[in-house]
Protein backbone atom coordinates (compact mmCIF):
# COMPACT_ATOMS: atom_id res chain seq x y z
CA UNK A 1 0.00 0.00 0.00
CA UNK A 2 2.21 2.76 -1.32
CA UNK A 3 1.83 5.79 1.00
CA UNK A 4 1.52 8.23 -1.90
CA UNK A 5 -1.64 6.57 -3.10
CA UNK A 6 -3.43 5.46 0.05
CA UNK A 7 -5.66 8.20 1.46
CA UNK A 8 -4.46 9.81 4.65
CA UNK A 9 -6.38 8.82 7.71
CA UNK A 10 -6.71 10.09 11.21
CA UNK A 11 -4.04 7.76 12.57
CA UNK A 12 -1.34 9.29 10.36
CA UNK A 13 -2.01 12.67 11.96
CA UNK A 14 -1.95 11.05 15.39
CA UNK A 15 1.49 9.56 14.68
CA UNK A 16 2.88 12.98 13.67
CA UNK A 17 1.25 14.49 16.77
CA UNK A 18 2.85 11.92 19.03
CA UNK A 19 6.29 12.41 17.43
CA UNK A 20 6.05 16.13 18.12
CA UNK A 21 4.85 15.42 21.65
CA UNK A 22 7.76 13.06 22.35
CA UNK A 23 10.32 15.51 20.90
CA UNK A 24 8.87 18.17 23.18
CA UNK A 25 9.16 15.96 26.24
CA UNK A 26 12.72 14.96 25.29
CA UNK A 27 13.63 18.60 24.78
CA UNK A 28 12.21 19.58 28.17
CA UNK A 29 14.04 16.74 29.85
CA UNK A 30 17.50 17.25 28.44
CA UNK A 31 17.90 20.98 27.89
CA UNK A 32 19.75 22.91 30.59
CA UNK A 33 18.93 26.32 29.13
CA UNK A 34 15.62 27.59 30.49
CA UNK A 35 14.65 28.81 27.02
CA UNK A 36 15.31 25.30 25.70
CA UNK A 37 12.74 24.01 28.18
CA UNK A 38 10.33 26.66 26.97
CA UNK A 39 10.77 25.47 23.40
CA UNK A 40 10.07 21.94 24.56
CA UNK A 41 6.77 23.15 26.00
CA UNK A 42 5.87 24.78 22.69
CA UNK A 43 6.48 21.47 20.88
CA UNK A 44 4.32 19.56 23.35
CA UNK A 45 1.45 22.03 22.92
CA UNK A 46 1.73 21.82 19.16
CA UNK A 47 1.56 18.04 19.26
CA UNK A 48 -1.65 18.27 21.29
CA UNK A 49 -3.07 20.91 18.92
CA UNK A 50 -2.47 18.68 15.93
CA UNK A 51 -4.46 15.88 17.55
CA UNK A 52 -7.37 18.23 18.33
CA UNK A 53 -7.51 19.44 14.74
CA UNK A 54 -7.16 15.88 13.36
CA UNK A 55 -10.05 14.60 15.42
CA UNK A 56 -12.27 17.48 14.39
CA UNK A 57 -11.33 17.48 10.72
CA UNK A 58 -14.23 16.60 8.32
CA UNK A 59 -11.92 15.01 5.75
CA UNK A 60 -10.06 12.42 7.77
CA UNK A 61 -12.72 10.07 9.10
CA UNK A 62 -15.03 7.58 7.44
CA UNK A 63 -18.09 8.19 9.60
CA UNK A 64 -18.60 11.61 10.98
CA UNK A 65 -20.87 10.30 13.73
CA UNK A 66 -18.72 10.76 16.78
CA UNK A 67 -16.35 13.36 15.31
CA UNK A 68 -15.84 16.31 17.68
CA UNK A 69 -16.41 18.63 14.68
CA UNK A 70 -15.64 22.30 15.19
CA UNK A 71 -14.95 21.88 18.88
CA UNK A 72 -11.52 20.54 17.96
CA UNK A 73 -10.57 23.69 16.11
CA UNK A 74 -12.04 25.91 18.79
CA UNK A 75 -10.02 24.21 21.53
CA UNK A 76 -6.90 24.43 19.34
CA UNK A 77 -7.51 28.19 19.07
CA UNK A 78 -7.78 28.42 22.87
CA UNK A 79 -4.54 26.43 23.23
CA UNK A 80 -2.68 28.79 20.89
CA UNK A 81 -3.84 31.87 22.78
CA UNK A 82 -2.98 30.38 26.16
CA UNK A 83 0.41 29.20 24.89
CA UNK A 84 1.22 32.83 24.00
CA UNK A 85 0.28 33.95 27.53
CA UNK A 86 2.27 31.10 29.09
CA UNK A 87 5.35 31.92 26.97
CA UNK A 88 5.16 35.58 28.06
CA UNK A 89 5.08 34.73 31.77
CA UNK A 90 7.76 32.05 31.44
CA UNK A 91 9.99 34.54 29.62
CA UNK A 92 9.45 37.19 32.29
CA UNK A 93 10.48 34.70 34.97
CA UNK A 94 13.49 33.63 32.89
CA UNK A 95 14.59 37.27 32.48
CA UNK A 96 14.26 37.98 36.17
CA UNK A 97 16.18 34.81 36.93
CA UNK A 98 18.83 35.97 34.46
CA UNK A 99 19.09 39.41 36.12
CA UNK A 100 19.57 37.96 39.58
CA UNK A 101 21.78 34.98 38.72
CA UNK A 102 23.41 36.25 35.52
CA UNK A 103 22.92 32.82 33.96
CA UNK A 104 20.08 30.88 32.39
CA UNK A 105 21.37 27.47 33.35
CA UNK A 106 18.48 25.56 34.90
CA UNK A 107 20.73 23.29 36.94
CA UNK A 108 22.06 26.21 38.96
CA UNK A 109 18.58 27.18 40.14
CA UNK A 110 18.77 25.20 43.36
CA UNK A 111 18.40 27.84 46.08
CA UNK A 112 15.07 26.36 47.17
CA UNK A 113 16.82 23.09 47.99
CA UNK A 114 17.12 22.49 51.72
Amino acid sequence: MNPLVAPIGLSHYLVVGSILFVCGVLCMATKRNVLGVLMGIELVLNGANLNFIAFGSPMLRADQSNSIGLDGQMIALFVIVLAAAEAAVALAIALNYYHTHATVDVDQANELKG
Partner: protein
Amino acid sequence: MDAINWHSFFFLMCALVACTFAIAVVIASNIVRMACYLVISLAAVAGLFFLAGADFLGAAQLMVYVGGTMVLLVFGVMLTARGPFVSMKTGPAQWLVALMAAGALLFVLVQASFSIPAWAGPLASQPQPATLPATAEQLGYGLLGVRADQLDQRDAVARGGLSGYLLPFEIISVHLVVVLVGAAYLARAKRRVTKLSTNTAGSHKP
Protein backbone atom coordinates in the same frame (compact mmCIF):
# COMPACT_ATOMS: atom_id res chain seq x y z
CA MET B 1 -0.56 3.00 -10.45
CA ASP B 2 -3.53 5.33 -10.38
CA ALA B 3 -3.19 9.07 -9.82
CA ILE B 4 -1.12 10.18 -6.82
CA ASN B 5 -3.34 11.29 -4.03
CA TRP B 6 -2.29 14.89 -3.65
CA HIS B 7 -3.59 15.19 -0.17
CA SER B 8 -1.32 12.43 1.10
CA PHE B 9 1.68 13.72 -0.88
CA PHE B 10 1.54 17.14 0.76
CA PHE B 11 0.75 15.58 4.12
CA LEU B 12 3.92 13.46 3.91
CA MET B 13 5.98 16.48 2.91
CA CYS B 14 4.75 18.66 5.80
CA ALA B 15 4.91 15.82 8.31
CA LEU B 16 8.49 15.00 7.35
CA VAL B 17 9.55 18.65 7.66
CA ALA B 18 7.78 19.04 11.00
CA CYS B 19 9.26 15.87 12.52
CA THR B 20 12.82 16.27 11.27
CA PHE B 21 13.02 19.86 12.54
CA ALA B 22 11.41 18.87 15.84
CA ILE B 23 14.16 16.28 16.27
CA ALA B 24 16.70 18.91 15.18
CA VAL B 25 15.45 21.16 17.98
CA VAL B 26 16.21 18.38 20.47
CA ILE B 27 19.66 17.67 19.06
CA ALA B 28 20.85 21.26 18.46
CA SER B 29 23.09 22.78 21.16
CA ASN B 30 23.21 26.44 20.07
CA ILE B 31 20.08 28.06 21.46
CA VAL B 32 19.54 30.32 18.41
CA ARG B 33 19.74 27.34 16.05
CA MET B 34 17.12 25.65 18.23
CA ALA B 35 14.85 28.66 17.89
CA CYS B 36 15.14 28.67 14.10
CA TYR B 37 14.47 24.94 13.77
CA LEU B 38 11.43 25.35 16.04
CA VAL B 39 10.09 28.16 13.84
CA ILE B 40 10.36 25.99 10.73
CA SER B 41 8.77 23.06 12.50
CA LEU B 42 5.83 25.18 13.69
CA ALA B 43 5.36 26.57 10.17
CA ALA B 44 5.20 22.97 8.88
CA VAL B 45 2.59 22.18 11.56
CA ALA B 46 0.62 25.20 10.28
CA GLY B 47 0.79 23.57 6.84
CA LEU B 48 -0.65 20.38 8.38
CA PHE B 49 -3.51 22.44 9.82
CA PHE B 50 -4.32 23.77 6.35
CA LEU B 51 -4.27 20.19 5.03
CA ALA B 52 -6.58 19.01 7.76
CA GLY B 53 -9.15 21.54 6.61
CA ALA B 54 -8.62 24.11 9.40
CA ASP B 55 -7.49 27.06 7.27
CA PHE B 56 -8.38 29.69 9.87
CA LEU B 57 -6.40 27.74 12.48
CA GLY B 58 -3.42 27.51 10.11
CA ALA B 59 -3.40 31.29 9.65
CA ALA B 60 -3.91 31.77 13.42
CA GLN B 61 -0.99 29.44 14.16
CA LEU B 62 1.21 31.33 11.71
CA MET B 63 0.32 34.69 13.11
CA VAL B 64 -0.04 34.17 16.84
CA TYR B 65 2.33 31.27 17.40
CA VAL B 66 5.08 31.74 14.87
CA GLY B 67 4.73 35.50 14.45
CA GLY B 68 4.16 36.29 18.13
CA THR B 69 5.30 33.63 20.59
CA MET B 70 8.39 32.60 18.67
CA VAL B 71 9.52 36.21 18.26
CA LEU B 72 9.05 36.57 22.02
CA LEU B 73 11.26 33.53 22.51
CA VAL B 74 13.90 34.88 20.12
CA PHE B 75 13.86 38.15 22.04
CA GLY B 76 14.35 36.15 25.22
CA VAL B 77 17.28 34.35 23.64
CA MET B 78 18.90 37.63 22.57
CA LEU B 79 18.41 39.32 25.92
CA THR B 80 19.82 36.49 27.98
CA ALA B 81 22.74 35.88 25.65
CA ARG B 82 25.91 36.30 27.63
CA GLY B 83 28.78 36.67 25.21
CA PRO B 84 29.04 33.94 22.59
CA PHE B 85 26.09 31.59 22.99
CA VAL B 86 27.64 29.16 25.44
CA SER B 87 26.02 25.83 24.66
CA MET B 88 25.25 23.95 27.81
CA LYS B 89 25.85 20.28 27.24
CA THR B 90 23.92 17.67 29.16
CA GLY B 91 25.74 14.57 30.21
CA PRO B 92 25.34 11.34 28.16
CA ALA B 93 23.77 9.58 31.16
CA GLN B 94 20.79 11.90 31.24
CA TRP B 95 20.47 11.56 27.47
CA LEU B 96 20.29 7.78 27.73
CA VAL B 97 17.58 7.77 30.40
CA ALA B 98 15.58 10.40 28.53
CA LEU B 99 15.83 8.50 25.25
CA MET B 100 14.63 5.28 26.82
CA ALA B 101 11.64 6.94 28.44
CA ALA B 102 10.78 8.80 25.26
CA GLY B 103 11.09 5.67 23.16
CA ALA B 104 8.68 3.80 25.41
CA LEU B 105 6.20 6.69 25.33
CA LEU B 106 6.43 6.90 21.53
CA PHE B 107 5.83 3.18 21.11
CA VAL B 108 2.72 3.33 23.30
CA LEU B 109 1.29 6.32 21.42
CA VAL B 110 1.90 4.94 17.94
CA GLN B 111 0.42 1.62 18.99
CA ALA B 112 -2.67 3.41 20.29
CA SER B 113 -3.15 5.54 17.19
CA PHE B 114 -3.16 2.52 14.89
CA SER B 115 -5.19 0.27 17.13
CA ILE B 116 -8.67 1.77 16.58
CA PRO B 117 -10.06 0.83 13.14
CA ALA B 118 -12.40 3.84 13.05
CA TRP B 119 -9.40 6.09 12.84
CA ALA B 120 -7.90 4.10 9.93
CA GLY B 121 -9.00 6.61 7.36
CA PRO B 122 -11.79 7.64 4.97
CA LEU B 123 -12.93 5.08 2.39
CA ALA B 124 -11.24 5.72 -0.96
CA SER B 125 -14.69 6.18 -2.41
CA GLN B 126 -15.69 9.21 -0.34
CA PRO B 127 -14.90 12.19 -2.57
CA GLN B 128 -12.71 14.74 -0.88
CA PRO B 129 -14.12 18.28 -1.16
CA ALA B 130 -12.17 20.05 -3.92
CA THR B 131 -12.36 23.57 -2.59
CA LEU B 132 -10.82 24.53 0.72
CA PRO B 133 -13.61 24.38 3.33
CA ALA B 134 -14.41 27.84 4.65
CA THR B 135 -14.07 27.26 8.37
CA ALA B 136 -13.61 30.90 9.26
CA GLU B 137 -17.33 31.67 9.03
CA GLN B 138 -18.35 28.45 10.73
CA LEU B 139 -15.95 29.21 13.60
CA GLY B 140 -17.43 32.67 13.78
CA TYR B 141 -20.96 31.30 14.16
CA GLY B 142 -19.63 28.66 16.50
CA LEU B 143 -18.73 31.54 18.76
CA LEU B 144 -22.24 32.94 18.50
CA GLY B 145 -23.85 29.60 19.21
CA VAL B 146 -25.05 28.65 15.72
CA ARG B 147 -23.23 25.32 15.48
CA ALA B 148 -23.13 24.96 11.67
CA ASP B 149 -21.38 21.57 11.77
CA GLN B 150 -23.57 19.99 14.42
CA LEU B 151 -26.87 20.75 12.69
CA ASP B 152 -27.36 17.16 11.49
CA GLN B 153 -27.00 16.09 15.15
CA ARG B 154 -29.41 13.31 15.80
CA ASP B 155 -31.19 14.54 18.90
CA ALA B 156 -32.87 17.94 18.74
CA VAL B 157 -31.90 18.76 22.32
CA ALA B 158 -28.19 18.66 21.50
CA ARG B 159 -28.75 20.81 18.44
CA GLY B 160 -30.79 23.42 20.26
CA GLY B 161 -28.90 23.49 23.53
CA LEU B 162 -25.37 23.96 22.26
CA SER B 163 -24.16 27.22 23.79
CA GLY B 164 -21.55 29.21 21.88
CA TYR B 165 -17.89 29.73 22.84
CA LEU B 166 -18.29 33.48 23.21
CA LEU B 167 -18.05 33.67 26.98
CA PRO B 168 -14.89 31.49 27.29
CA PHE B 169 -13.34 33.52 24.48
CA GLU B 170 -13.93 36.79 26.32
CA ILE B 171 -12.53 35.31 29.52
CA ILE B 172 -9.42 34.18 27.66
CA SER B 173 -8.80 37.62 26.15
CA VAL B 174 -9.08 39.29 29.57
CA HIS B 175 -6.78 36.60 30.97
CA LEU B 176 -4.28 37.28 28.19
CA VAL B 177 -4.23 41.02 28.93
CA VAL B 178 -3.70 40.42 32.64
CA VAL B 179 -0.90 37.94 31.97
CA LEU B 180 0.92 40.26 29.56
CA VAL B 181 0.72 43.22 31.94
CA GLY B 182 2.03 41.01 34.74
CA ALA B 183 4.85 39.70 32.56
CA ALA B 184 5.88 43.22 31.53
CA TYR B 185 5.87 44.33 35.18
CA LEU B 186 7.84 41.27 36.25
CA ALA B 187 10.55 41.75 33.62
CA ARG B 188 10.91 45.48 34.22
CA ALA B 189 14.00 46.44 36.28
CA LYS B 190 14.04 49.67 38.21
CA ARG B 191 17.19 51.72 38.08
CA ARG B 192 18.13 55.07 39.55
CA VAL B 193 20.18 57.18 37.12
CA THR B 194 21.97 59.91 39.10
CA LYS B 195 22.69 62.99 37.06
CA LEU B 196 25.79 65.13 37.54
CA SER B 197 26.85 63.47 40.72
CA THR B 198 30.62 63.22 40.94
CA ASN B 199 30.50 59.53 40.19
CA THR B 200 28.88 59.54 36.79
CA ALA B 201 28.39 55.75 36.83
CA GLY B 202 24.70 54.98 37.36
CA SER B 203 24.21 52.78 40.44
CA HIS B 204 22.10 49.78 39.53
CA LYS B 205 19.64 48.38 42.00
CA PRO B 206 18.67 44.77 40.96
